[in-house]
């Protein structure tokens, strides 16, 4: 699967939906880590700073992880 993913990426045809889902996974991990450290829910900005993206991008990625998977996603997931 790693090979296939690398191939897709190198091909320059990686779909934004896939990239957003990867970011959404990082957002989820960052959220868990910060929650553990601080003992409370992180702010959007705390997550954005950790991932070095904008708060708006955090929101965008989070939404993508909620959208139904396309056929493309199902094949490679």
């Amino acid at each position: 699967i790693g090979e296939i993913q690398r191939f897709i990426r190198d091909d320059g045809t990686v779909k934004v939906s896939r990239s957003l889902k990867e970011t959404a996974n990082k957002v989820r991990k960052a959220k868990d880590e910060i929650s553990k450290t601080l003992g409370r829910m992180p702010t959007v900005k705390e997550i954005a700073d950790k991932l070095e993206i904008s708060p708006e991008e955090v929101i965008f990625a989070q939404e993508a992880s909620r959208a139904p998977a396309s056929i493309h996603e199902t094949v490679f997931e």
Partner: protein
Amino acid sequence: MKLQFAAKSENESFARVAVASFISQLDPTLEEINDIKTVVSEAVTNSIIHGYEEDEKGIVTIYVSYDGEMVELTIEDNGKGIEDVESALQPLYTTKPELERSGMGFTIMENLMDDMEVESKIGEGTKVVLRKRFAINNTVN
């Protein structure tokens, strides 16, 4: 800010992202963002399904502003309007039981926000104003 889009379900997700990403400037918690997304979903879905009955020619308008204290969110349509607003606000009240709607949309909006106002006129449309306290020092519009 002001946002307008066609009354199609595909645009619901876009509306959530647009409003939530605008609000993200106020340094909200994830929980606050999730509440905002939920109320946007409920109100936008109502405009699309009830207001316009999924006629994609309909336009949904959203206004978002922040005055340093309160976020004000307005979701407006020029759809068919609500016959009896007082009943519509009751938990479990729905005019589309066949759609497996829960009748809890307005109840959810009222509970997640600090303040809700609903104005509606048959044949003219519906306007929902939602307010929530946000404790940071900033202004956006």
